């Protein structure tokens, strides 16, 4: 009985989570591919000037295979991310093999950063970063949100904290 209700609760809990933007997995793949591309370029340039001492030719296919696997992994990893905006808190879960679920209450958020790099701007996405007072390990970052959604979430939390501050000073 107890285990049944627990699994039901968990199922309801999971249903409340929203996926990130549909085009975020693609953006994640492109970002990963670009990172690998830069590493490859540096290696090739070094190899060229050092007569292929650093990167023997037979290792190039292995390198490309590793890069391809990493790019595919980044796609599924991005797909596995989801978040939940509750009435009082925010939750974010990610990870394919190593899974993580992070929860931060609105009233513990010190400040919020909304950022969008060149690639994110192209895709109309933004990253939200929430800072708490628990040091660098206690921040929460949610990438791949549609820009409008990110702004709405930020505003919602700012309104909440403002209202809480007002009520505590009345």
């Amino acid at each position: 009985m107890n285990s049944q209700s627990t699994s039901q609760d968990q199922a309801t809990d999971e249903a409340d989570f929203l996926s990130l933007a549909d085009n975020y997995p693609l953006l994640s793949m492109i970002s990963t591919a670009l990172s690998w591309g830069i590493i490859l370029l540096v290696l090739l340039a070094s190899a060229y000037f050092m007569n292929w001492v650093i990167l023997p030719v037979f290792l190039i296919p292995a390198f490309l295979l590793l890069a391809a696997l990493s790019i595919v992994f980044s796609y599924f990893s991005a797909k596995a991310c989801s978040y939940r905006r509750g009435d009082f808190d925010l939750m974010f879960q990610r990870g394919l093999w190593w899974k993580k679920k992070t929860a931060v209450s609105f009233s513990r958020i010190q400040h919020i950063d909304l950022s969008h790099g060149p690639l994110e701007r192209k895709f109309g996405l933004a990253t939200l970063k929430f800072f708490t007072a628990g040091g660098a390990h206690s921040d929460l970052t949610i990438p791949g949100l549609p820009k409008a959604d990110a702004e709405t979430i930020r505003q919602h939390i700012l309104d909440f904290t403002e209202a809480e501050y007002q009520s505590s000073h009345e």
Partner: protein
Amino acid sequence: MNNSLTDWQRLSLFSVIFFIGKTLISLFKQALSTFAPMLLIVLASNKKLTVILLLIAGLSLLIIGNAILQFWFFKFRREGEKILINDGIFKKNHRVINFDRVQNINILTPIYFRPFGLVILKIETAGSKGNEADLSGIPAATAATLRTEILQHQQSVSAQSSGYSATDTSEDDSKLVVSASLKDLVAYGISSNGVFFFLAIFGPLLGLFFTSFEGSTRTFIRQFIVPAFEFLGDGSSGKVGGILLLVSFVILLMFLFSILGAIYRYYGYKLSSQQTSLKRHSGLLTRFEESLKIIKVQTFVTQSNFIGRWIHRQNIILGQVASSHLGQPSKRNTFIIPARKQSQIPELRKLVFANAPDEIPEHAIDRRYVLKTWLIWFVFPMMLVAANYLTQQSYQAAGIAVLFSLAMLPLVIRRWHMYRFGHAQNYGAFQSGLFGFKRTLFPLYKVQRTEIRQSPLQRRRNLVTLRISLAAGEVVIPYISMQQANQYLESIQNAIKTNRAPWF
């Protein structure tokens, strides 16, 4: 209000002594990078004595000149509910410290300031990486006035927001809660981990000394140390005896260092409580007078090493908002109450967390922690080491590697046994340790962030690791069931939702 404080003030001329000390301490902290080049110059020169004297004279001139300039450019004043500080010789700093942001105000009376009635006022703010301000060499009366003004301001703000009465800035209503005798300080010295600071501080210096004078040190050991141990006999038994004696001597020195440190820092320890704050006085040469608002305490930690357990003493650490970027509380953000007996703990706990329950039902973590930790940290690495030795046909070494991993199993079991966690009535408790222990108690509503992690190994049994981030550090509970972690998370969220009291 002291109107003279609204004009720009200079520190006392005697503050030059403080600045000299500060520079010397920072030089010794970076002993290797400071003295290594000088040692090279000395070793490379033919006239060693002249070069040494010249270096000492040059360095002294530099330190004294720097201290005088620091004194000259340091100015401060109060403007409304702010303290303005201008300092810096080449790079000018203009600091503004709002009374609201002040976390601790401590008054220190170093022995060299005592005859002149001067003190150091240390103002720390939440989240800052270092002390925001050290007003060193100001009259004791000025320091007291500034502190009273800041506390009164905070009191009035706190009274507005949470209904606290603004009456506890006076000295009269304070009640002595704890005092520590010399015996207590000795107990603290040996039961705290201060013993290891001996190695941290003197280790690099000894290493530098040995590297610089390797030849002379070897000769000294051959001529004096080795003959001194001759009574232990020749051969391997003599060597083992010598090493054991040397290790015992180092351990003894470590404890002595820790005890002396405890006496220097906590001599004449007195902790008194007022309505909403704690105040402590301590110190042998430098008298420390520190105050802490109880609302700012994030965690109540009791800890002891194996000697502390043996002599039945625990040290209490009140965790405040950490400034360290690694998520761990820095030393200055801890408020220590040294060497208490188990029977004294509940009263102190009630003083800090009045609503905390006397008992929180505690659970053990899952026993699979033992297997995973043992396999990953000891069995697999030692198997690799053993395999390497086997390929070199060193069967004895391979056997030792296997035996080592087996010997670690009881320690891993002990570590598992020491893990305890639980939560009740809006408070969380966590214990970890090996031979000693560390118990952390915290109000759930002060939690900043909660994270549930699950590795592929844990998923098969639906186990997780729960990480609870507080402003005073992190609590990591490994190998608990997903259900327990979710319940814990839910309790934290409910506590934050229902408790609107300021967490800081």
